């Protein structure tokens, strides 16, 4: 037996995209596999959860049914350091849009046999249910940040994952601001960094998929965009994207919705 820390990668309601980022880290994956005992990683290996403890648990996805909630409580109880990965796990994800709707009615409309569907009325972030030691944002998460998180865990440093605006990365990268120079509504100023400002670097406004940064002044940005002629519905849609249920975005979009 090795004394390598045990890593478990678990999933709730999600698309697997975040877990696949780890599979995509081909170069680093070998080093990770050498340094950690990857004890559970359903999308990549066939090993079953052996019911043991995890030193590091990465949890993808939101809580959207009772079964997931029970699973989550079990994982938390068996994990020393639990990290939520991705927009679903950290904010409820795109599926949290249903939180503004009547779920029963949607089920009736969408599914041929509504009785097969077992779901909670809301899709909620992991931190609403259990204590979380660290959050890795993004839809999907950024490979570089994932490797940094794992390395920092192993080496014992505070992960260099900065809670600052996307603008900070955008300016460091030398990209031209699409909001100022093109008038593109961009959520960068209120969005948590980590993506490397990839959308602005390709000339598009930020979609906010890393969720709100600390002190995200979503209403102040919305008020400015509205004064520049962006209609309220468009702003609501913009804020209700991948991280719609994150409080800073949710509150601002609700305020706009109510007019």
């Amino acid at each position, binding site marked *: 037996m090795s004394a390598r820390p045990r890593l478990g990668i678990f999933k709730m309601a999600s698309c697997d995209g975040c877990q696949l980022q780890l599979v995509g880290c081909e170069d680093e994956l070998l080093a990770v596999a050498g340094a950690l005992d990857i004890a559970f990683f359903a999308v990549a290996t066939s090993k079953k959860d052996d019911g043991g403890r995890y030193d590091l648990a990465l949890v993808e996805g939101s809580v959207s049914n009772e079964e997931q909630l029970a699973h989550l409580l079990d994982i938390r109880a068996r994990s020393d350091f639990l990290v939520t990965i991705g927009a679903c796990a950290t904010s409820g994800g795109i599926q949290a849009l249903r939180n503004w709707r009547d779920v029963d009615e949607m089920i009736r409309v969408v599914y041929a046999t509504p009785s097969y569907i077992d779901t909670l009325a809301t899709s909620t972030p992991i931190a609403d249910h259990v204590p979380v030691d660290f959050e890795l944002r993004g839809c999907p998460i950024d490979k570089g940040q994932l490797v940094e998180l794992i390395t920092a865990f192993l080496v014992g440093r505070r992960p260099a994952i900065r809670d600052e605006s996307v603008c900070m990365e955008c300016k460091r990268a030398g990209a031209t601001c699409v909001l100022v120079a093109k008038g593109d509504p961009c959520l960068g100023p209120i969005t948590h960094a980590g993506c490397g400002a990839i959308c602005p670097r390709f000339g598009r406004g930020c979609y906010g998929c890393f969720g709100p940064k600390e*002190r995200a002044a979503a209403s102040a940005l919305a008020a400015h965009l509205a004064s520049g002629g962006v209609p309220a519905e468009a702003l609501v849609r913009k804020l209700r994207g991948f991280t719609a249920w994150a409080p800073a975005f949710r509150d601002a979009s609700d305020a706009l919705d109510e007019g």
Partner: protein
Amino acid sequence: MQFLERAALDALFDALRAEGRAVLGPTVVDGAIRLAPIDGAQDLPAGWTDAQGPGHYRLRRGGDATFDGYVVGPDSLKQVFFPSKETLYRAERRADGKLGFSPVLPDPGASAVLGVRACDLAAARIQRAALEGGPYAEPRHRARREAALIVAVNCTRPGALCFCASTETGPRVTEGADLVLTERPDGFLVEAPTQAGRAVLARLDTRPAAADEVAWVDDAMREAAANMGREVDLDGLPEQLFGRLDHARWKIVAERCLACGNCTSVCPTCFCSTSEHPSSIDGDEASRVRLWDSCFTEEHAYIHGGGFRPRTEDRYRQWLTHKVGAWVAQFGTSGCVGCGRCIAWCPVGIDLTEEIAALRQGEGIAALPAPPAHACATDEDLVPRAATVTRVERESDDVVTLHVAVDEGLQGVLPGRFCQVSLPGIGEVPISISGGDGALLEHTIRAVGRATDALCALSPGDAVGIRGPYGRAWPLEALAGRPVVVVAGGIGLAPLRGALRSMIARPDEFPEVHLCYGARSPADVLYAKELLGWMEVPTMHLHLTVDHASPAWLGHVGVVTRLLDARSVPAGASAMICGPEIMMRFTVERLAQLGVPDERTWVTMERNMQCATGFCGRCQYGPYFVCKDGPVFSFDQIRFLFGEEGY
């Protein structure tokens, strides 16, 4: 002054290339005029013009000027001399367990930067003062700066957001340029204030300018100065801003401000940075990377246990009171050169000229103390020296004292100063000198976070990195001859221990020393054995208290200020204090009641630190950088700001 035909502009590129220079200049990229490598006159934004407003920047076709159709874009010389991200050093763990640190220093080839405006040359001077003009000089900045030849341009058509006439930094180029061009429809009037500029000029086919052309330049400059899009009154501003820290405007602007950091990123004088410690997965190879930071981020003001500037109004106020306030005391000039970038590139269009005008309306004036003068500038490459832990003493559950031998020895090891103590891949943190001399350092460390946890877990023989020592020591010479009261809370005893040892060793100069020390509990009392020994020292008087007593504790219980009375604070005493800020605040007030004046009360300040040398801006505190102007201050130097929420 010479005249260069418009058609001969390509010859300038040839002349620069003939000197082996890579040319950077203004060029259109993604809808803005950026500073980028260019090959010839065809890459310049001829025929482009910019429209700028608060939160607004658009390029359109218009006119046929090469330089005069537009003013500054988001880039400045800051990008060239102080890149947004760079590796400072690499560290490796060698097979023998020792650490090897190797500096990463740039080897910039000769370059030329074309089209630089007067405001940006003033900004480069100001950045140089911050990065090379303090007690330390940053060699990376200097190397890049020295490698660049500057071809500047006089602005004949200032933009809507320009106000360099108000800041006295333009529109005419008066400093920092090797060549200066003034554009006319038919060509360029060229001046060459430096030898390097004259060498380039000699390669060009020019003719002497006619007297009316020379006069035209003067007229054009006068006209430009009268045509600024904005203006600002900086007169007496530092005193006004610091006298109006509770002005209603701070809250008003904070309702719009997104705390995004765009303003500081585009500002050509802002120089704050932070650092990261990336490593390989096994931690054996690591480096330290410096990157642009902003006082609008939460982390900027973080120290263990919380941030000093949680609210957006704190951050905006921090920025503006530094930029156009404390900057003057620190660098002899405002930090604003009137370029207007922060207005254009603020996503919500906050206009500092408007904010300044609003803040001038109000009451309140506060004089700013001057920071101490520093002997100039030893090179500081920010690279630690390899060191070895020789002994570990456990002081309490969460505190250890490391004895550290630095391979090359250290100069200037004095109580009150501190070192940056590092573990590659984990971090680098400021830790006071709690004892020792040049060969052997003592550091007493409380485990509160990742870096201090790892340091507290070290064993004899383990390797660490040390840089320093930095900062100002306790002024023992100034304290000699009077009774001294030393007030310490918790880990705050660490930076005082060396001073206490010195005072005990010099009983003639320090005939009466009182140590008033408060710890959380009896088990948290530091240096217990040494304290017992001090009880036997005739010149030393010990007064101890704990917050939470144990059954065996017979001493005082309660806060440390309760120890301060006429007995422990003799008439004519001076004081030295170190502990949490709230404890220091109450202590200073109590000492004042007992007759110790501010100028004989010395305190040590704690702020987030990355560089310890005045480069990173993290520890800026009013007119000071705590790292180089402190951490030890006499209280009269900081009273005006001490305890002010948000600083």
